[in-house]
C-alpha cells in the first residue's frame, strides 16, 4: 500500500496581515488568510469539504486562539464533510497531519487548515481595560500547580532550564546558540511580513536583557497577530488547481515517545522532538544529506537547536559546533535554517509559519529570500517541550 502521505499536496497558502497590535478582530484575520488560501489554490469556498485547526476555541485561551473551527465554518458558511480542532495533538502542525489523514481516507478533497493568533492585540486590550482578565484569584490545577507557585510561569523559564542542562552536558555557548537568532534576523530582512527586520549583530544578541538565564530577549519569539492558512488537497485534484500542482508530503513524524511533562523527562533536550524526528526518518528513504532546507520551530532558539540535533543533522551534543559562526545555517549555507526569519524575527505564527515558508521556497516563490539551486526538499517542524511534529515536504513534481 502506498503510504498515506502521498495522497495529499498543499495547493494553497494564505496569510493575513501580520504585526504587533494590529487591533483587528481575530476572525477578520482568519477570514483574510483562509480566503487568500482558497483563492491561491484557485478554488471557491464551495470546494472546501474539510476544516482543521489548532487549537480551536479553548476556553480562557485569550490571544492564543483567534478562531475555532466552528466559528470559521459558520462565518464562511462552509459545509465540510469533516472538521477537527484540538490543543492535544502533535504540535500545531499535527492539524496538518489530521487534514492529510482526512484526505487519504477519502473523507475530504480540499481541507482548509488555519492557525490564528492575536496575542499582541489581546495584551493591549487587557492593558487598556477593554478586556478584563477573567483568570486569577482561583487555585491552580491541570499541571500548572507544579510550576506556577514558584514563579516558573513562562515557557521561557521551563525551556531555560533544559538549555542550562544542555549547556552543562555539552558545553554549548551563548555565542553558538545566538547564531539561530542572528541568522533569523538576517533572513527576516527580506521577509515582507516579518515583525523584526532591523539588523541584529551577535553583540546585540549577547547584550540584550536577560529573561531567564541562559535565555535573553532574542532567544524568545515575538508574540503577534497573524493568521496563516493552507489548502491540503487530494493529489488528483492538483491539476485542476491554480498552479496545476502542489507541494508534496514525503513523510510525517508524530510519535509521542516521552513523558508529556516539563520536568520529568530527559532534561537535556526538549521533550516531544525525539519521537517525531525518529518517526520521520522511518517513513522515508531520504536522509539528512538529501534535505535542502529546514524550517525548525523556534518559539525559543533552543527549540530549533533540539530539532536540528534530534533530526540528526549533527551528532549528539554537537549542535553548538554545527551552529558556530552561522555559515552552515545561512540561506546560502549547507542547511538553510528558518529562511523567513522564524518566529524569533518574523513573528509567532505558531508553527504554521514554518510550513508556509517551506511551501513558498519549494514552489520557488520566495523572491529575494529564495534559497538558491532550486530546492527540492524541506523539513518543517512544530513543538518541543510539548508533543511536536515534523513534516518532510517535496517540491511539486
Amino acid at each position, binding site marked *: 500500500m502506498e503510504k498515506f502521505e502521498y495522497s495529499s499536496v498543499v495547493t494553497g497558502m494564505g496569510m493575513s496581515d501580520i504585526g504587533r497590535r494590529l487591533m483587528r478582530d481575530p476572525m477578520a484575520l482568519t477570514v483574510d488568510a483562509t480566503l487568500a488560501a482558497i483563492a491561491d489554490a484557485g478554488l471557491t469556498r464551495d470546494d472546501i469539504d474539510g476544516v482543521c485547526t489548532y487549537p480551536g476555541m479553548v476556553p480562557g485561551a485569550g490571544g492564543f486562539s483567534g478562531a475555532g473551527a466552528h466559528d470559521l465554518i459558520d462565518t464562511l458558511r462552509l459545509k465540510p464533510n469533516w472538521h477537527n480542532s484540538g490543543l492535544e495533538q502533535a504540535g500545531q502542525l499535527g492539524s496538518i497531519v489530521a487534514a492529510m489523514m482526512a484526505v487519504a481516507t477519502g473523507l475530504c478533497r480540499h481541507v482548509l487548515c488555519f492557525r490564528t493568533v492575536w496575542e499582541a492585540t489581546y495584551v493591549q486590550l487587557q492593558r487598556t481595560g477593554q478586556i478584563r482578565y477573567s483568570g486569577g484569584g482561583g*487555585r*491552580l490545577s491541570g*499541571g500548572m500547580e507544579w510550576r*506556577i507557585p514558584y*514563579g516558573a510561569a513562562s515557557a521561557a523559564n521551563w525551556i531555560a*532550564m533544559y538549555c542550562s542542562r544542555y549547556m552543562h552536558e555539552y558545553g554549548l555557548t551563548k555565542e553558538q546558540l545566538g547564531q539561530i537568532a542572528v541568522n533569523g534576523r538576517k533572513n527576516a530582512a527580506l521577509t515582507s511580513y516579518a515583525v523584526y527586520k532591523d539588523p541584529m549583530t551577535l553583540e546585540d544578541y549577547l547584550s540584550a536583557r536577560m529573561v531567564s538565564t*541562559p535565555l535573553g530577549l532574542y532567544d524568545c519569539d515575538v508574540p503577534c497577530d497573524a493568521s496563516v492558512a493552507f489548502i491540503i488537497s487530494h493529489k488528483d485534484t492538483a491539476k485542476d488547481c491554480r498552479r496545476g500542482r502542489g507541494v508534496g508530503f514525503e513523510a510525517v513524524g508524530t510519535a509521542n515517545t516521552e513523558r508529556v511533562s516539563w*520536568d*520529568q523527562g530527559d*532534561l537535556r533536550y526538549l521533550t516531544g522532538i525525539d519521537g517525531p524526528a525518529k518517526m520521520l526518518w522511518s517513513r522515508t528513504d531520504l536522509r539528512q544529506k538529501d534535505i535542502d532546507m529546514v524550517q525548525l520551530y523556534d518559539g525559543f532558539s533552543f527549540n530549533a537547536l533540539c530539532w536540528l540535533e534530534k533530526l540528526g543533522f549533527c551528532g549528539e551534543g554537537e549542535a553548538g559546533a554545527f551552529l558556530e559562526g552561522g555559515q552552515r545555517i545561512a540561506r546560502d549555507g549547507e542547511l538553510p535554517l528558518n529562511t523567513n526569519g522564524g518566529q524569533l524575527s518574523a513573528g509567532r505564527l505558531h508553527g504554521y509559519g514554518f510550513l508556509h515558508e517551506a511551501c513558498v521556497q519549494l514552489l520557488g516563490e520566495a523572491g529575494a529570500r529564495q534559497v538558491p539551486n532550486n530546492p527540492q526538499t524541506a523539513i518543517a517542524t512544530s513543538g518541543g517541550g510539548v508533543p511536536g511534529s515534523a513534516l518532510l515536504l517535496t517540491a511539486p513534481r
Partner: protein
Amino acid sequence: MSKTVKRPLPMLTDSNRFFWTSGADGILRFMRCTACRNYIHPPVPVCDKCLSMEQEVVAVSGRATLAAVTVNHQMWIPTIEPPYVVGIVEIEEQASVRLTTNIVNCAEADLRIGMALEVQFEECEDVFLPMFKPAGAGAKAQARES
C-alpha cells in the same frame, strides 16, 4: 521564614493534598507503589512500572540534586519579585522523580548543576511549598539565628 510572598497556589484535591500539606511537619513525602516500591510523581492512580494501583504515602529524606536551573529576571506574576532561582531537582531516593521548585539561600554564582540540596518549606495559606537550599547551609544559618 523571612517575608511572606503571595503566590498563586495549587488547588488541593484528594490526590495531591498529601503532597502540598506534607511540609507541616517539615518532611517531604511522595506516593510510592506498594508492590514494587516505585515512587510516583506527579500523583496518578497507577504505577507506571508494574501497573499496580496499590500505593502509599511515604516520607523521604528531603535530600536532592540540582538537575537544571535558571535565574528568572522577568516579572511574570506581580507578587513574585525577580530575580529568583527556579530549578528542577531530583530526589535522592529516585532520580527520575523531580520537582520544579525554587532554589533558595544560594548566591547565583554558587549555583551548580549536580549540587546537593535539601528541602525547606514555605508556608502559604494551607499549602507548604517545598523549596530547596544547598545541603547543610540551612543548618548553619539556623544555628547562627538561635
